[in-house]
């Protein structure tokens, strides 16, 4: 076991890699509650994959990672792991995003029983035709919430209009048809590929003794037979820099209008360090649309905007995707133009840059305040950078305005896709 530290943040992390490939990260902090999370690198945007020894890639329906997450709580003895956590007074849940599926619990007391429940939950599948059929009704209702949600409608369509080939264009839940096409064989195939410890990491934070935890986890796995093997291979797909469709209008008899503006940007290679590359890129959004930007007052005073304009940054393969969403009363084009002019204005000030840096440093401190935030930070960094960024605080402190200005010169904002949920013409 190796002790590492997030410098400047008073946070130690104990690292261990088991023989079966499982990576363990333990961050003790003074809290009564302990958060445990096991993450598999199988998310909603992974639809073609194989193991090292396979000759062919397997293709599965969209939505399967999320479906699998639901089914992992079904056990042969009929005891739902969630009921074990509940009996221990702990809360537990799971989530699937585009890249990962994570299972987690938070509780004070009964820690080892909770940890055992977590590990058993992800290593003891029990899929039958009957229980797969049952889940289709439940997940279809989950999907139907999105079908009625204006944000989800424009977001889902944006992905389809931005990506030619990457499976990111499929939603995490899949379509109703995808959900209904999933079989128990599909689930076992995905399970056997991605729920091997070599594709997983365990993160734990709270009042724990790291050595004791590692010994417990080793003992747990001694009863399972996971041969050491390489990571699952996800099929790489080439993606052009252009978008599929630049403008799309969806008609629904809503009372307001919803817009989503997406910019697809090839990662500039001016900065080789992936973490810093993303931080510098995110400054573009912060400088132009953050709380301190001049546009804040323009948006607040714009009577055409019902909601604030929200911005999101996704990192997908070699691309940064910037998404802007708003609920609009009339004239969506006015807001779309305003967003476009603002993001393309490359006149930046050093004062703003330094203030944003201060705000980011504060947010980093806040993110190490609770066990779940710490586990989430570590898991995300391992997912995107293959390891925790222990010098993130120093890296952030060292962000430099001149480097930012040089970096931003390479950013191309020509590839844009717009989706409008309009209410002018009712559905025919």
């Amino acid at each position, binding site marked *: 076991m190796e002790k590492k530290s997030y410098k400047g943040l008073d946070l130690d992390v104990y690292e261990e890699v088991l023989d079966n490939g499982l990576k363990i990260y333990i961050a003790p902090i003074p809290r009564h509650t302990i958060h445990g999370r096991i993450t598999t690198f199988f998310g909603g945007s992974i639809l073609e994959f194989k193991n090292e020894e396979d000759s062919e890639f397997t293709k599965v329906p969209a939505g399967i990672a999320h479906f699998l997450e639901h089914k992992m709580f079904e056990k042969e003895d009929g005891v739902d792991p969630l009921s074990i956590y509940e009996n221990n007074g702990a809360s537990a849940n799971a989530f699937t995003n585009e890249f990962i599926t994570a299972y987690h619990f938070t509780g004070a*007391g009964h820690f080892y029983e909770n940890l055992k429940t977590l590990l058993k939950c992800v290593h003891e599948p029990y899929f039958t035709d009957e229980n797969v059929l049952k889940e289709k*009704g439940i997940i279809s209702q989950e999907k139907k919430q999105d079908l009625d949600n204006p944000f989800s409608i424009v977001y889902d369509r944006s992905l389809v209009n931005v990506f030619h080939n990457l499976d990111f264009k499929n939603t995490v839940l899949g379509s109703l048809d995808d959900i209904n096409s999933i079989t128990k064989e599909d689930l076992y195939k995905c399970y056997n590929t991605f729920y091997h410890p070599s594709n997983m990491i365990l993160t734990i934070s709270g009042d724990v003794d790291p050595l004791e935890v590692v010994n417990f986890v080793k003992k747990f796995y001694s009863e399972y037979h996971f041969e050491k093997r390489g990571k699952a291979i996800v099929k790489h797909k080439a993606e052009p820099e252009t978008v599929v469709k630049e403008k799309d209008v969806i008609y629904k008899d809503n*009372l307001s209008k919803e817009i989503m503006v997406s910019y697809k940007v090839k990662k500039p290679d001016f900065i080789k360090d992936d973490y810093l590359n993303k931080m510098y890129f995110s400054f573009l959004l912060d400088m132009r649309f*953050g709380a*301190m930007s001049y546009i*804040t007052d323009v948006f*607040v005073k714009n*009577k055409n905007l019902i909601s604030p304009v929200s911005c999101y940054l996704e990192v997908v393969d070699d691309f940064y995707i910037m998404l802007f969403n708003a609920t609009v009363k009339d004239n969506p084009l006015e807001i779309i133009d305003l967003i476009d002019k603002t993001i393309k204005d490359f006149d930046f000030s050093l004062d703003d840059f330094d203030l944003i840096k201060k705000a980011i440093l504060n*947010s980093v401190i806040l993110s190490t305040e609770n066990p779940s935030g710490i586990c989430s930070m570590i898991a995300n960094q391992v997912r995107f950078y293959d390891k925790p960024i222990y010098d993130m605080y120093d890296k952030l402190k060292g962000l430099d305005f001149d480097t930012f200005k040089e970096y931003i010169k390479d950013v191309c904002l020509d590839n844009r896709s717009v989706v409008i949920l309009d209410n002018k013409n009712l559905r025919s």
Partner: protein
Amino acid sequence: MKYYDYDMDGFKLHVIKTNRFKTVFYSINIRFEDNKDSEIYTSLLSRMLIQTSSKFNSLREINTYCASIYDPSYNIRVLDSGSENILRLTSSFANEKYTEKGMLLKNLEFLTSFIFEPKIVDGGFDKEMFDIQKEKLLEYYKSMKDNPKEYAKSRLAEEMQIKKYKVLKLDDLISGISNLSEVELYNFYQSIMSKGCLDIFICGDVDEKEVKEIFSKLIKFKGTHKKINHLVKQHDFKDMPNIVVDKTNNTQSNLIIGFKLDNLSDFERNYVFVLYSWILGGGMSSLLSQTVREKYSLCYYIYAVRQNLFETMKIYAGIDGVNFEKTCNLIQDELENMENGNFSLELFEGVKEIYYNSLIRIEDSQDDLVASYASEIFINNDSISDRKKNMSKVTKEDVMNLAKKVHVDTIYLLKGEV
């Protein structure tokens, strides 16, 4: 952890001193009596307070200064608390140990000014910003049907009428806000300041004497609040529920069932009711989840939520409209199972464990610590140790007896196309 309680100039200062956190949590609470038509004012008031300040000319200026003091996060809301409302600012900022000396004072000055130094022009809130915020709020209400869950909730509130004063229909709320002026809103704000009751909470690794010194200079409060009972008892229990169905073109249907409870004792309201709602519709092991979701696959979500200070409960579910009757019948069966004690001892003990665990967790969150102390002061909740003792006394019979006091009032369905 130590707790300090100071009588200040017209208000109370509560300092929870603990070295378990890297941040300082700061909360301003002004309690005032819920009055007729309060809801016309409250949403606009919190929007105006958070977006304007007498010290700054624009949001950009506010946010720029905010970043210069290491970006405290903050929010302002007006909350329903039974027969009272609470104007509340909550905020969190890094302890100056992690930033620079002097930031405690600067953060407290900055955050406090949102509540006590709004931008006032000619006896009213800043007219330009008022008109903009009013229009945006009106658009939000006018297009509320685009957000089915919120719309369904608002329709149920209209139908059930659980508050001390009549809950306005959406159209009346819209017309009330349309007619409101910046001067009337400022008068409402002034009435809160003159009739309210102020409590300030600070939680973190701070020096209590330094905090006291800061607040002795920062705030003088003239509120004349009299202690009132937060509790709103329910009346008019129906023999047959009021069934209301509105139609939309959505895919999914939103079902909300509202219940009124008949005159609970303090013990029942604070403890038995918690267990009742969790066994019925708390987690995944609850009766509703196990039956409606797991056994019959009718929904993705179904859960029960208590409103203790109103002695009411709501059950939420997203279903296909064609399954409306079937779902209602299954819910009715589970309500009967609660009355008859048809739930396992394991579930009963499990939800007690969740409650005990939630008490332990309070110390892990500054927000929860403050909320817990505030509930002891505002609504006479028991201390954490008494809460544990009292919960351990609750029996299965208590839960079954409480089940007999649960009366279904309104079944509301926002019916989709499927």
